[in-house]
């Protein structure tokens, strides 16, 4: 079935009543826990990461509450250390890294390429169980005192001085890494081997290119953090000194090893989001994406270059000047492909027919906020200014702009966009738009003051500060509460829509893409017959009318 664009005329390949869809196929708990269907596994992940999101959010709330006043009055300093550490670990390893790949990716990758499932369905299920195991370990660590080293586990605090659950948490992160690797492996093989006939590389949706680049980063980077955490565990358990100068080791070596993975890790978090945005922009502007090949290749460029910039986290770590110069230069370079994407998305919007629905609002938010975050990254990548801004709230604001203003908004946009496909129901549009707006406002109110705070000298990871900083901190906390509301609202209305939402047809947005040619929710095998692709992606005609649900 070729990809033509006639949203009203698209009929589902099977009539809705013919076959049970993947949700109705079997209702038993075991059928879910032992499923091999990538769509069900995606839903399992969706539930799990949402739980962890709110756990991480809980820690964030406590942090912001503490920081509303200059004194250390809410929690003792040691506890505060544990709060920001657990916030980081949960949000990064258990929410952001799996978020788009394991939920939207798992659901959509086979569908977008016309396949019945991923290449290794059992590995897929295994990856979820491994993730859950890691999560259990992390929760046990949390209840046994948590960790206070910062999510970055810098030595020698993590190997010598800290009396908290470093070993257990490092183990949890180690195991979570394996879940990630399995997912990445699955995606790469699937994209290489299981594309529908006629689906050449340059006919792939940009989301697939993004997932491919992400998988590349996962496969090559995650093993290094694995061995690094293993070395930390060895050092802690056996009292040896790989990272301890008094025993002949070098703490900076830890930083090198750690950041070698952790910088590409942030690209694992943002590349899928960028893939989602490409899909959203072209759908809601009813226009072929501007510069398809540039966007596709820029994903790969970010993945590759991203491995050569880790030292920009270490400018003040006593690494050699030569190294710092090298990393600074390459950091400037890696901004280029991201900039290319932003330009291309904006160019797509030029003279297009934009429809302002919830996913589009999130996409626009992404473009603006990610740009701000990216540009402030350049401030930090410049050696001179880095000295002044390092370890201040400027850094905190920067990475929250790209990860929350960027990745999380893309995730929410994608979730809303594909919600009708995944569940067969439309979410209530009014509430969707309202939440998007609340998130945008809350987010900026929370994190923009932090740029100012950082530039004025407020240091991160401290639970008290000088009274001069209070006004901005209070603004930030106020913003955080608004942001919290913005995140909790979707929880309610999305769940509400499962039962009361308007049933969605196969293609409520009038979008192109193989996934929209199936019924919503799809049947377990995705496609009744393997589709054959004959056209380029994003074939919207300029005279397209506003899509009707």
């Amino acid at each position, binding site marked *: 079935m070729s990809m033509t664009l006639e949203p009203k005329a698209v009929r589902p390949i099977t009539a809705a009543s013919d076959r049970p869809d993947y949700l109705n196929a079997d209702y038993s708990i075991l059928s879910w826990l032992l499923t091999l269907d990538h769509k069900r596994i995606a839903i399992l992940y969706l539930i799990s990461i949402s739980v962890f999101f709110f756990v991480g959010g809980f820690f964030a709330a406590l942090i912001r509450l503490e920081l509303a006043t200059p004194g250390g009055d809410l929690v003792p300093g040691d506890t505060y250390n544990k709060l920001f550490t657990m916030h980081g670990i949960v949000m990064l390893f258990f929410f952001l890294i799996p978020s788009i790949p394991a939920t939207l990716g798992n659901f959509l990758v086979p569908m977008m390429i016309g396949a019945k499932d991923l290449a290794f369905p059992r590995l897929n299920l295994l990856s979820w169980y491994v993730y859950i195991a890691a999560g259990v370990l992390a929760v046990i660590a949390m209840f046994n005192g948590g960790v206070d080293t910062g999510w970055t586990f810098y030595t020698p605090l993590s190997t010598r001085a800290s009396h908290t659950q470093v070993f257990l948490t490092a183990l949890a992160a180690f195991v979570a890494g394996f879940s990630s690797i399995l997912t990445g492996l699955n995606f790469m093989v699937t994209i290489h081997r299981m594309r529908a006939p006629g689906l050449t590389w340059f006919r792939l949706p940009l989301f697939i290119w993004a997932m491919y680049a992400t998988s590349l980063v996962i496969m*090559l980077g995650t093993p*290094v953090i694995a061995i690094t955490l293993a070395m930390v565990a060895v050092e802690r358990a056996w009292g040896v000194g790989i990272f301890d100068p008094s025993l002949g080791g070098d703490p900076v070596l830890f930083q090198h090893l750690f950041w070698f993975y952790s910088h590409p890790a942030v690209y694992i978090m943002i590349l899928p989001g960028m893939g989602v945005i490409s899909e959203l922009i072209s759908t809601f502007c009813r226009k072929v994406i501007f510069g398809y090949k540039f966007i596709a290749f820029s994903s790969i460029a970010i993945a590759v270059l991203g491995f050569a910039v880790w030292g920009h986290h270490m400018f003040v770590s006593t690494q050699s000047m030569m190294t710092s110069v090298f990393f600074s230069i390459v950091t400037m370079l890696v901004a280029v492909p991201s900039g290319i994407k932003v330009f291309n998305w904006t160019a797509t919007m030029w003279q297009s027919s934009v429809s302002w629905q919830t996913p589009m609002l999130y996409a626009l938010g992404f473009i603006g906020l990610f740009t701000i975050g990216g540009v402030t990254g350049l401030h930090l990548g410049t050696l001179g200014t880095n000295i002044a801004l390092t370890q201040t709230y400027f850094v905190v604001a920067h990475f929250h702009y790209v990860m929350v203003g960027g990745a999380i908004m893309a995730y929410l946009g994608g979730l809303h966009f594909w919600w009708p496909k995944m569940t067969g129901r439309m979410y209530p549009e009014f509430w969707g738009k309202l939440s998007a707006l609340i998130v945008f406002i809350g987010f900026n109110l929370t994190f923009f003051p932090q740029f100012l705070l950082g530039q004025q000298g407020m240091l991160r990871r401290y639970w008290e500060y000088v009274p001069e900083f209070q006004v901005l901190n209070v603004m930030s906390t106020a913003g955080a509460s608004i942001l919290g509301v913005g995140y909790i609202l979707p929880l309610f209305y999305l769940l509400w829509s499962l039962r009361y939402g308007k049933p969605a047809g196969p293609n409520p947005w009038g979008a192109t893409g193989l996934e929209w040619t199936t019924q919503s929710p799809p049947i377990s095998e995705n496609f009744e017959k393997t589709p054959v692709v004959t056209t380029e992606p994003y074939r919207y005609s300029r005279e397209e009318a506003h899509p009707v649900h």
Partner: protein
Amino acid sequence: MFLATEILFFGGLFTAYAVMRTLNPEAFSLASYKLNAVLGGLNTAILLTSSFTMALAVWAAQTKNQSLLRLFLGLTLFFGCFFLVIKAYEWHHEYEVGLLPGKNFGYAAHGHDHAHADDKHMSDHAHDHNQASSPGAVAARQITVTDRDGKTPLTPDKLKGLQMAFLFYFMITGLHATHMVVGISVMGIHWVWTFFYPRFGVDDYTPIEVSGLYWHFVDVVWIFVFPILYLLRH
């Protein structure tokens, strides 16, 4: 693709080793000197042989000859285990002469200076009760690990660097050995299956080929490990 992740996994460890070696060149050279290159070389030959028999096993599977497959898989397993036995012997020897990192590093295992968990307890007690008695009794242990000439005991400074080198030795060979155990287990299961399922491996030789790739990779790691750890001794 999975092997690419393994390259990076071992690679991280090797990189850390490279850094440490840059920082402590003489200690690492000395560590190489203390390892037995003959045994290491023998182990290399054994592992290469097992790779050879594994390649032949894959060939047997491809040419649908199950009895040969069984033979070569069995031989591969045998050589793999032989490697591990020699490795265990080496490790035991290193423990004996006091080269296992930890609080007994530098002290031979059965000398009177070898510290055990209860010794510390006793010496603590002694210290508590006999404040006035000779503190020298629990002090200076005789370092038994010697320098290149075979006679002079090492200074504590040099001992530190040496301990780092041996830490990496044990980590790298330990990680490698763990991979070997996994490989042997999987191949062992395959080997047993060839007895119960007459067509296993010949109908579809993919499992054999995949185990073969894994095994060859483990061999490649050792091909690098051996010269780096054992032979760079000057």
